[in-house]
Structure formats: structure tokens, C-alpha cells
């Protein structure tokens, strides 16, 4: 083990606004937190770091009264507190955005942001004032959606911003953000950071969790690192390097992170080769305008674009999750019509959704069941996967993806967010698809696992599988793909072979130019 | 607008609105059929409605009959109480009302013209009197006490309350007779069978079963037979109704005594209706023609039984 940066000596600290001492929380079979100390100062941005399952979310939930603490004390502003529910912690000035979006999809955006604090006159909610207030918060986040629209109609990224908006509206002295940026694009992140900066200057203490190291180094003042439910140390951000931080998190030296080479143009499509997938004029009213696309075996297609550019919609149409109004899809030269995901699965297409909670995990089933779900569905209920195969497959993927806890019988709902994502990935890999569509597969995944997944994608492609890779992280898209599609305003605006010349800046420029182009050419509002 | 111009019903056909309780038993179905058929025979146009055992539904139908301006309303109240309001509306609309099968306990007897039906208390009494008359023969197992188990109808239903009351009143005449257990069998065969099964296990030396209707009695017979006993011999059975299945069992010696409760009120009802519409006077209370059957009488009557 290399020399870690020295933990911060105590006297340097002012009076913490939050102080947690010796926190212990055990779930059946898991000691999630084993005597963790934690301090949060006013006017700082404090990053809570750790691998998937390290206990970050649990520590937050212990602080905000979601979980009862087995042992240890929590004090806020010097007073010892025993929060029995999130309502109590909120009353004590702690405003929280939890990791999974926790809003009510059946209510409007404004309602979600202001629930419990709605402006009202004589007991009657003032809808106008509510929408206006919500609108101004959305504004701060640079979000131009109708506050009166239903939350459920918006993609997960928007929902995440709405959740952040809700937390911002609470006049709090502590703001907790558990992976707020996991599905945001660069612009949104910048805007969010501006807001965070302002709040910090006003003296608000901000607790921030993220797996994006760059972001952490950009915004945070100090950080606390957890590993396996134990405290590793507290550091000043300017006193630690990225490498040291990663080593603190994973507890060992990392083989070079950027090991993965630029994947480059693996197989330039030879003349006359039948593409694996040939898409012509695929469109759906209100969500995607005609898109053409060809995918060849062993190709990784990256899709770049900003929020709402239609990437998810394209993926869903390719998979039959939504039905297209027009256009054709040929798989290896045969025409297919995907009315349900089953049709697409039959054509050996796999799709891992960006909305893990609503469209991915089956919370009350075990890891093993979740992994084998699609395989089983494809085999039909009468032919269960034989126990031996089952055990072998599950063990193999738990090991390959380093899923923790490595127990096939653990319930999915008890897994940390990152580990759930890995299980879902395994679900699709087990079906050995010809085309794997990954919508934000690295969302909420720690740095180590992210590298693992990227390597996996590269390896799968090398073995002949085609992959469609959608990610808000442009670097990641560029690093992995053979070709990059750029989307904007629900249509494809560029399709480029990803050679050395392509850069993040260039892609962003393309998107901006596309903006100009559409504004001139197509005033279709 | 409630002030109603009476349609010229005088010479052409009469329209009758009949609000039935429901179709909760075979007895009730026979009753309905009788009303429908005799209406046809009598040339009365019948508006029939089924309340599905709910008073509110019945009130609604009566109100809708008033709205439709029928000439006469007849109904078998689901329950005795609570008719004043709607009957008042009928009275205001000048529509006469005839009650069938069950009475209403309204203080204001001007709200209806007459009540046609049997008296449940009397039925219970008749059953009890027969048992008293049996004397020592009622004590089947000769232990000096006549141990009766009672299968009640649906708890709270008028026939159940009244039959129990009548039976208990008559039973007092012989101090040896005692009801050892009494439980509801909901007027069904299944209920009768299940309750009787339990009684057979928890009560020793049962002499007599008193069932509030034939169906529960028939269920009890099954339970008794399954226990290896002979219904009608080892345990005597008294029931009320006299539907065909009950009469058959009586004729076969499996039931000992049945008090009739006659569902065929149709012809009597239509007669009354015509008289009322024509403005003739009718008695305030008309009893249905009912009898009692023992085993020999049953054999004779069985052939002619229509329901």
C-alpha cells in the first residue's frame, strides 16, 4: 500500500454543524456501518467517497432519520439529535436528495418540489404562486420545463434535477446530495455546481456523493472516505491526489486506471457486408424523428447528445419497448417488426434501461433471480434453468462483475445502487445477445467498476458482439466507440467514425452547430 | 311535478309495480313465479324489480314506480322498519300499496291497504306445539330430557327472529324441552350441514333438530347420516317451509314434521289488487292459506306439489 495522504488533524476544524460519532448500523447479514465518525462544517462542500456498497447512502440515511441507528450519536449544530423520520431531520434544517429519485411520479413537477411547503392562502393552495416559485427554482437549474406538467412524463435526468430543486427550495443549513449528477450532462452539472457554490458562500454545509472524481475535485473542499462500512479517513481535497483517493477507497493500489486504450475503428464496414442491424427512417410521433442507422458485428456505437436529445427514445424503439410509427428494422437482412421487447430479445437484442429502479430491478427477488430473469423468460416457464447451470452462471457473473455482497440469495432491494446496476448488466450478458444496447450503464457506478464495465464492453465487442453505448459522459463515449452518433432535438445530426480526430470539444461544437442549423432551417414550433 | 294525472286505468289494464326482496332462496323464486304468472293470468301488467336483499334498493324501486305512475304498488319488505317516507310519497301520489309476505311496523296503517302473508311467529309456534304434543316420544334417547338444537336463519332476519320466538313460546309448555344449542345456518343447506356437524360433536344426546327452513334441515340430515345416525329416528327433525325437497324427505321419514309457509301468493295478491284499484274495501290482514304436514300427510300431498 502506498503512503496515504495524512488525515486531517482535528484542531484544524471549526465547530461542525453535523457531527456523527461511532455510527453502527447492521442489516440482516450485512454490517453496513461499523463505528463511523463523520463531521461536516458550515460553508464547506464535503465529498463522501467510497466504492459501491461502502456505506455512503447508509450513512446519509442514518443522519436523516431514515434508518434507526444501532449505536452511536448524531448531533446537529451542537445538539444531540435522535431523528425518528426524515421529517424530523428536515425540521432540523437538513435537506436531502437521496440516491434513487424519490419523488411522486403522479404529481406535477411543481407539486413535487414544494410538497409540504406549498404556498397557501386560508388553507387553500395557491397553484399559481406554487408554479411560479417552482419555475424560478427550475430556472436556477437551467431547466425549461412546465412546472405544471406531470413528473412521470419526464426522463430520469429531469426528475433528478427536480429532486435537487426540491432540496434547494428548503432553507437549510445542511444540504445532502447523494449522487446528484449520475445522469446529468456536463452543462447541467456546471449549472448545479454554480448553485452549490452560491450556497456554500452563504454558509450552507453541503454533503456530496459522486463517483465522478473530476467533479469531486472540482467542487469539494474536504472529503471523507469509507470502505466496507468503516471510516478510512478525512482529507482536504487540495491535500490528496486522485490516485491517492482511489487507493484510499479501494484499499489497494490500482493498476493503471486509464489502461483501456482508445478502442478506435475496429472493423471498418467492408463493402457488401450485411449489417447486423439496418434501420431506415425509424420514427415515433412526439419522441423521435426519422433516424437511419447501420450497425455491424463487433462494432461499438456511441450515442452522444444532451438531455432530451432523444437517445433513450431511439434505444427504446430499437428494442421494441415503444413501438415505432414508421421506419424499418432489418436484422441480418431480415425484416423485423418489434412490437414488444420479446420480439427484440428473440432477435438477440438486449437493452439495459437508464431508469434502473422503475424499469430494471425486481426489488423483492434475489440477485440470482434477477440475473436469470430474461434467460428464463426466453426459455418459457416450463423449462426452468437447470439448478446447476443457474448456480454456475450466477457465480460466474457475480465474480466477473465483482457484485457485492457475493450472495446469489441476497434480495435485490438491499443492494447498493451500483451493485444493482451490475446485476442488471449480468441479466443481459447471460442471454448472449448479438446487440447490446446500454443506456447509461455506468450511472452510479464507482470508478473501479466503471473501468471494469468499460473493459467488458471492449472485450465483448472484440468477441464479436455489437454494442450501442449511451452515456452522458462524452469522454466515456469517445473512449469506447468505433462510431459516434450525435443526436439533437430528437434526431440524428451526425454519424462519425471515431478516429483520433474526434474530440469532446468537437462533439459539443457539432451539437451547438446543429442547434444553429435547426433554428435556421426548421422553425417547427 | 308530483301532482299526477291518473292515467285512464279504469277500464283497460292495471299496471302493478312489484318490488321483490330478491331471489335468495328457492322459496322466494317460487313466490316470484307465482306473482308473475298470476299477473299474466289476471291481465295485470307487472313491473317487477328485484332488490337483491337490500332495503335501499327496494325503496329506490318503489320511488321509481311512483315516478312511472303505476296503478298499484306491492312489495315484500326486506325488513319491517323504515318505510314511512316512501309510503308517504306513494300516498301523496295516490298509489295504493299492498304488502306481501312480511309486514311493516308503521304506526300509520293508512299507508298501505292490506297485508297478505303468513305469520312467522305462528309458524314457530306450530312447530313447538307439535313437539310438546309428542310428549315423551320426543325424548328419543329416553334420558328424561328433550334436548333440542336449533338451526337459525340469517341472524337478524325477521323469519329467524319470529320463528325462534314462536317456537320458544310454545316449548315452555313442557319443562323437559330445552334448547341446548342454537346457531345460524344462514338458511342454506351448506350452513345447516356444517353447523349440525359441529353440534353432533359438541353436544351429546341430541333428540330434536329444529330448523328454521327446509334447506337447513336437509343439510342437517346429511350431517346426521354422515355421523352414522338415522335422521327422523335417532334424531327427530322439525322444519318450516314445505318445499318439494323437504316434503320428499318428510315422506321418506327423514324429517318428522313440516310447517308450511306458502309462497304461492300470486292469485290472492291479484284479486286483492283488482279490488283495491276498483276502490272496493279489503280486509286489513289477509293470511295465506297454510297447513302443516306430518309424514303421512306428506306422502299424500307430494304428488301435487309444484315447487
Amino acid at each position, binding site marked *: 500500500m502506498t503512503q496515504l495522504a495524512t488525515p486531517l488533524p482535528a484542531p484544524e476544524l471549526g465547530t461542525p454543524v453535523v457531527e456523527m460519532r461511532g455510527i453502527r448500523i447492521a*442489516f440482516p447479514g450485512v454490517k453496513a456501518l461499523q463505528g463511523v465518525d463523520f463531521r461536516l462544517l458550515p460553508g464547506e462542500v464535503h465529498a463522501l467517497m467510497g466504492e459501491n456498497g461502502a456505506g455512503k447512502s447508509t450513512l446519509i440515511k442514518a443522519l436523516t432519520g*431514515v434508518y*434507526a441507528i444501532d449505536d452511536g450519536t448524531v448531533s446537529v449544530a451542537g445538539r444531540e439529535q435522535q431523528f425518528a*423520520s426524515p421529517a424530523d431531520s428536515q425540521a432540523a434544517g437538513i435537506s436531502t436528495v437521496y440516491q434513487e429519485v424519490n419523488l411522486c411520479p403522479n404529481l406535477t413537477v411543481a407539486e413535487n418540489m414544494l410538497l409540504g411547503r406549498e404556498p397557501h392562502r386560508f388553507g387553500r393552495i395557491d397553484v399559481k404562486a406554487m408554479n411560479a416559485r417552482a419555475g424560478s427554482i427550475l430556472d436556477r437549474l437551467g431547466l425549461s420545463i412546465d412546472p405544471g406538467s406531470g413528473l412521470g412524463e419526464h426522463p430520469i435526468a429531469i426528475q433528478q434535477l427536480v429532486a435537487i430543486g426540491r432540496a434547494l427550495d428548503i432553507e437549510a443549513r445542511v444540504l445532502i446530495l447523494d449522487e446528484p449528477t449520475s445522469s446529468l450532462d456536463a452543462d447541467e452539472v456546471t449549472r448545479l455546481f454554480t448553485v452549490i457554490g452560491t450556497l456554500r458562500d452563504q454558509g450552507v454545509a453541503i454533503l456530496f456523493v459522486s463517483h465522478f472524481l473530476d467533479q469531486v475535485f472540482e467542487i469539494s473542499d474536504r472529503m471523507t472516505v469509507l470502505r466496507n462500512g468503516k471510516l478510512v479517513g478525512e482529507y482536504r481535497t487540495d491535500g490528496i491526489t486522485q490516485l491517492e483517493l482511489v487507493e484510499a477507497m479501494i484499499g489497494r493500489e490500482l493498476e493503471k486506471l486509464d489502461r483501456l486504450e482508445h478502442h478506435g475503428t475496429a472493423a471498418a464496414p467492408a463493402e457488401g457486408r450485411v449489417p447486423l442491424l439496418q434501420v431506415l427512417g425509424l420514427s415515433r410521433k412526439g419522441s423521435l424523428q426519422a433516424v437511419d442507422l447501420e450497425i455491424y458485428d463487433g462494432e461499438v456505437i456511441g450515442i452522444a447528445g444532451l438531455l432530451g436529445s432523444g437517445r433513450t427514445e431511439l434505444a427504446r424503439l430499437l*428494442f421494441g*419497448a415503444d413501438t415505432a410509427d414508421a421506419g424499418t428494422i432489418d436484422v441480418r437482412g431480415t425484416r423485423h417488426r418489434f412490437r414488444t*421487447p*420479446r420480439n427484440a*430479445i428473440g432477435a438477440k437484442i438486449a437493452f439495459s*434501461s437508464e431508469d434502473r429502479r422503475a*424499469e430494471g*430491478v*425486481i426489488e*423483492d*427477488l434475489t440477485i440470482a433471480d434477477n440475473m436469470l*430473469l*430474461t434467460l*428464463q*423468460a426466453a*426459455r*418459457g*416457464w*416450463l423449462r*426452468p434453468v437447470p439448478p446447476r447451470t443457474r448456480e454456475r452462471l450466477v457465480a460466474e457473473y457475480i465474480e466477473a462483475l465483482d457484485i457485492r455482497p457475493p450472495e446469489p440469495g441476497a434480495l435485490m*432491494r438491499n443492494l447498493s445502487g451500483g451493485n444493482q446496476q451490475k446485476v442488471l448488466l449480468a*441479466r443481459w450478458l447471460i442471454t448472449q445477445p448479438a446487440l447490446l444496447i446500454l443506456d447509461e450503464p455506468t450511472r452510479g457506478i464507482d470508478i473501479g467498476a466503471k473501468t471494469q464495465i468499460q473493459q467488458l464492453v471492449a472485450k465483448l465487442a472484440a468477441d464479436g458482439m455489437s454494442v450501442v453505448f449511451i452515456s452522458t459522459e462524452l469522454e466515456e463515449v469517445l473512449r469506447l466507440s468505433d462510431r459516434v452518433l450525435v443526436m439533437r432535438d430528437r434526431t440524428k445530426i451526425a454519424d462519425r467514425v471515431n478516429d483520433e480526430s474526434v474530440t469532446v470539444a468537437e462533439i459539443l461544437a457539432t451539437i451547438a452547430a446543429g442547434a444553429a442549423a435547426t433554428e435556421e432551417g426548421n422553425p417547427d414550433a | 311535478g308530483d301532482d299526477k294525472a291518473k292515467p285512464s286505468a279504469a277500464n283497460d289494464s292495471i299496471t302493478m309495480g312489484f318490488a321483490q326482496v330478491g*331471489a335468495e332462496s*328457492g322459496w322466494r*323464486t*317460487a313466490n*316470484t313465479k307465482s306473482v308473475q304468472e298470476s299477473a299474466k293470468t289476471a291481465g295485470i301488467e307487472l313491473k317487477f324489480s328485484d332488490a337483491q336483499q337490500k332495503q335501499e334498493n327496494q325503496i329506490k324501486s318503489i320511488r321509481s314506480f311512483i315516478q312511472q305512475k303505476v296503478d298499484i304498488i306491492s312489495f315484500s319488505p326486506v325488513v319491517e322498519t323504515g318505510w314511512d317516507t316512501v309510503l308517504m310519497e306513494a300516498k301523496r301520489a295516490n298509489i295504493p300499496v299492498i304488502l306481501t309476505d312480511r309486514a311493516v311496523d308503521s304506526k300509520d296503517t293508512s299507508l298501505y291497504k292490506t297485508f297478505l302473508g303468513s305469520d312467522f311467529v305462528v309458524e314457530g309456534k306450530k312447530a313447538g306445539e307439535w313437539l310438546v304434543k309428542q310428549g315423551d316420544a320426543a325424548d328419543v334417547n329416553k334420558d328424561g330430557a328433550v334436548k333440542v338444537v336449533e338451526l*337459525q336463519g340469517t*341472524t*337478524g332476519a325477521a323469519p329467524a327472529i319470529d320463528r325462534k320466538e314462536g317456537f320458544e313460546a310454545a316449548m315452555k309448555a313442557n319443562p323437559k324441552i330445552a334448547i341446548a344449542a*342454537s*346457531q*345460524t345456518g*344462514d*338458511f*342454506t*343447506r*351448506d*350452513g345447516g*350441514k*356444517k*353447523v349440525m*356437524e*359441529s*353440534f353432533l*360433536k*359438541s353436544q351429546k344426546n341430541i333428540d330434536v333438530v329444529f330448523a328454521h327452513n327446509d*334447506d337447513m334441515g*336437509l343439510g342437517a340430515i*346429511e350431517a346426521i347420516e*354422515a*355421523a*352414522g345416525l338415522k335422521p327422523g329416528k335417532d334424531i327427530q327433525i322439525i322444519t318450516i317451509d314445505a*318445499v318439494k*325437497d323437504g316434503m320428499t324427505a318428510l315422506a321418506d321419514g327423514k324429517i318428522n314434521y313440516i310447517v308450511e309457509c306458502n309462497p304461492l301468493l300470486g292469485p290472492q295478491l291479484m284479486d286483492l289488487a283488482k279490488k283495491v284499484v276498483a276502490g272496493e274495501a279489503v280486509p286489513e290482514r289477509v293470511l295465506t292459506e297454510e297447513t302443516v304436514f306430518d309424514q303421512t300427510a306428506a306422502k299424500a300431498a307430494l304428488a301435487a306439489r309444484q*315447487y
Partner: protein
Amino acid sequence: MRELVRRPLFWPTLALLLLITLNTVVTPSFLSVRIQDGHLYGSLIDILRNGAPVLLVALGMTLVIATRGIDLSVGAVAAISGAVACVYIAGSDRPAAASTALVAIAIAVVCGLLLGLWNGFLVSVIGIQPIIATLVLMTAGRGLAMLITDGQITTVVNPAFKVLGAGFVATLPVAILIALAVFAVTAVLARRTALGMLIESVGINPEASRLAGIHARTITWTVYVFGAFCAGVAGLMIASNTSAADANNAGLWIELDAILAVVIGGTSLAGGKFSLLGTLIGAMFIQTLATTIPTIGIPAEANYLFKAIVVIAVCLLQSPKARAALRSRRPVRTVKADAA
């Protein structure tokens, strides 16, 4: 002991045992079983035999509930199936022949299946909320049953038909043997094939299941067909037990009993995980409760009160929070579920 208490079925089982104990204290002969005419005879046997229809219906209901559905029509389906069988037997040339009984049973079962197809169609294809979709058949079904029997109680005298509900094979009641057989087959289908897992998956998260390629519609449809099949067989048992089809009262409120059995057995009405063994215990509990009332001599007017008290007691026993509160005076500090 600790381990035992944690088992999900511990509390329902305990409740069942308590009820049996109560009966035995009041009527010492409650547990005694003797052989009479070559079959077992006693209160316990009655409970098993009379509990068979509820058990059957509850088995079907368990799977329906596991998919987040509910089936209110089971009582009506039971009535129809009984009515069809009895009317067929009563109207045939040889109303006492075993072959007639077999044909009648077959027709009734087919009717049940058709009604299940109907329910499943409304729920899974048209997409009507299960409670309303099955309410349609709950209302209309009784009418159909009465239409079939012409509103009369149709009595049949057919020894072969009687076997189904009141007969004995190898000293045991046929009804319970059938119910147990269906239980066993269901358990095997659910747990030895992948059906159980797929049903649970659809119940827990229908959208995620669809995206995982599960044929959610077929599965939903199938469970309603199965539910109606069970109800149909239960209806035959009820009819056979009294040798009569009572369109009005056969299976009246059996849906409530069945749902109660399912829930007491630990299956949540919110769908998802289900326990067939739990349902078995739940159904037996309900039947024991029904038998207890006349046995221990509760007056008819106190039936409901007694039932209410027992049900409340069982719910509280089963609730971990209530037990924790009973055990310690401290404020309850359990981990709050993170579920929706």
C-alpha cells in the same frame, strides 16, 4: 427458538394451534378421531373436508394476488360450476350413473376455465382494473347461475357425484385429497418450474418484467384462468357436499375468506412474493374458526364479534411492529422499509 420465531409462517401456525387448543379445552373430544364405516370421523376431519373449497379458491387467489390482481368473482364461478353440474345431472337420462357425474364434472370445469379466460381477457388484454373486471362477473355470475338453475335449488341424487364433496378414499375425505393434490401440483408448478418466479416478477414490477422479455400478459391471463379453475372445482365440492346446487348461496363471500386466507398466510395484497404453504395454513385457520363458533357455543349474534377479535389478534400477532411494541416499552426502532 429465535430462528423459529423469525420464520414467516410461525405466527399463522401458532394462531391455528391456539385456536385448536381453545376448542380442545372447551370440547375435550375435539381432537379425537375415530374410524366409522371405514372412514375417519371427527372434528378435525370435518375441518379438513369443509375447508377444502376455501383452500382451493385461496390457492388460485394466491397466484392472482401475486400478480397484483384480485378476483372477486370466485364465489360466482363456484356457483355457476355447481349449477351447471347439478342441472346436467338432474336433466340427464341416468341421473344416478357415475358416467353422468363425470361428464357433469367435466362440463363444469370447462365452464370454470371459460370464465377464467373471460376475467383474464378483461384484465390483461383490455386492461381493466382487476377489482372491477371481476366485479362484473361477481354480479352477473350469480345471475347466470340462477338462470341455469331457474332460481331453484337443484337437488341431485348421484352417489358418484357425492364422492367429490362428501366421499372418502382410504379413510380420508376426497375433498381434501383433491385440494391437497391441487396444492401439490401448484406448488410443483410454481416452485419447480419458473412460473412462480415469473409471476412474482410481474407482480413486483410489471414494467421491468416486460422489458426483461417476460410475457406478462400471458402470465396474468393464466393466473385468472387458474383462479377460476380452482373456483370451479370448489363449486363442485360445495354442490356435491349437499348434493344440491344453490345458485344464491353456494360460495357466498368465499372470496373474502379466500383473500383472508391468502393474507394470513403472508402474501401481500400489493403483489409479488407469495407463499402457498402460508395459504394452506391460512385456509385451515379460517375453517377452524368457522367450526369453532358453533362448537364452543357462541350465540349466533356474537359470531361476528368473535371473528373480529380473532382476526385482529392474528393481524397483530403477525405484525413485527406490534410484537416489538408488546415486548418492550421502548419506542419501536425497527429499520424502516425502503419500499414503495
